[in-house]
């Protein structure tokens, strides 16, 4: 990184650190939130402060004066639960073999992603289960987590999806509408936790701008906070460039 680039990076991180309190408390605008989310992996101080604020918020919620709810509330909640019990699938759905590296799993990943897209299914702060109609396409839908990584550029149609099993170190990524790269370049997937960015795989896209990637991390995928895809030299990088294509919170 050149001196100018280091200076620019430091200024960007100063701006993000300035915003991180607002971001943690839901006070930033959509543009500001996007800016923080895109720059956070490159700003360990801001990431550390965000983690502090999240822990502080947990403490603030726990520390309110404790009031005993009315005894009848428990009965009402249990009755409502009994009336809305969700049916449990008796037989497990067919499993997709994630370790099969032939085109079969690529097509399966594409099918999952297409169904996700047609349902316009967005990730929220709280992980949500996949819709019931996808249950037959994935391994034991109760155990799958997934996240959408939207484009850094709001005018871009590029998007990526990450899926993983809680506690598992393997994951699957599907990308679509990614721009073609110049010769000597590659896309690289990063997972971020506590300001540390870990490369987990690289890929190139086909003529339609799509790709699927199976990856493994050294720690459970679900333990990471963010995922990013950047453009890197073909030989790969040990640290992400600033050329972020998509990124988002896991």
């Amino acid at each position: 990184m050149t001196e100018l680039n280091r200076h620019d990076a430091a200024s960007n991180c100063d701006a993000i650190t300035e915003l991180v309190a607002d971001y943690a408390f839901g006070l930033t605008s959509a543009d500001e939130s996007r800016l923080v989310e895109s720059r956070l992996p490159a700003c360990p101080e801001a990431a550390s402060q965000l983690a502090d604020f999240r822990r502080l918020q947990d403490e603030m919620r726990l520390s309110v004066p404790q009031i005993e709810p009315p005894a009848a509330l428990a009965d009402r909640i249990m009755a409502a639960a009994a009336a809305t019990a969700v049916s449990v699938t008796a037989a497990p759905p067919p499993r997709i073999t994630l370790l099969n590296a032939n085109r079969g799993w690529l097509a399966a990943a594409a099918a999952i992603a297409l169904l996700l897209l047609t349902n316009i299914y967005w990730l929220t702060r709280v992980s949500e289960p996949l819709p019931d109609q996808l249950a037959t396409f994935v391994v034991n839908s109760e155990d799958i987590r997934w996240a959408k990584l939207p484009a850094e550029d709001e005018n871009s149609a590029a998007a990526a999806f990450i899926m993983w099993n809680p506690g598992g170190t393997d994951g699957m990524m599907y990308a679509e509408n990614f721009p073609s790269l110049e010769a000597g370049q590659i896309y690289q997937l990063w997972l971020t936790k506590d300001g540390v960015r870990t490369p987990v795989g690289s890929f190139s896209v086909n003529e339609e701008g799509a790709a699927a990637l199976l990856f493994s991390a050294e720690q459970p995928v679900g333990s990471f906070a963010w995922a990013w895809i950047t453009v890197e030299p073909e030989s790969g990088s040990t640290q992400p460039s600033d050329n972020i294509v998509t990124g988002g919170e896991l």
Partner: protein
Amino acid sequence: MQPVFNDQDVMRRIMAQDQQAFHALYNEFGRAVYSLAYRVLHNAQLAEEVTQDTFLKVWQRKAQWDPNKGKLINWLLAIAHFTAIDQLRKENRQPNLHPESIEEIEYIVPPDPNSAAWQDGMALHMMISRLSEDQARLIELAFYQGLSHSEIVKVTHIPLGTVKTRLRRGLQRMRELWLDSVRNKS
């Protein structure tokens, strides 16, 4: 002897629609959820509704806990908090003209000065008392009431720039005080 509450075991059983496990979840955390809901809404009936909504979201698998992301209680309280703020926004369209004060509530749990929870709560209240009155009020509005900057301006009649600066400084100061208290405890 009461069985030990195991977060992961209980949640796994709830995902399998075990009603006994769901009851155990409510027994363990119902008070904390209700108390937070009441803190936001200052209304017992609305707090009950939010508590019910929170637990039913878990039961109906509209929300799933990931143990890698944090403790079950914190996840549950976050759901309760957002649900309560949503309810508050609905109520603000038809404002509650007779909010209850906590003194009117009959079921306040007497604090246990020996409990870690009570001590942590006291430490947090002491931190807030070390902020300026304006900063503490702004944090109350932003966090517990879920107001945006512009909504805070409407309520307080403080200019937007001043709200942003005071709130940001208050939050950073609170963070510093909290980090100091965490270091002193360890």
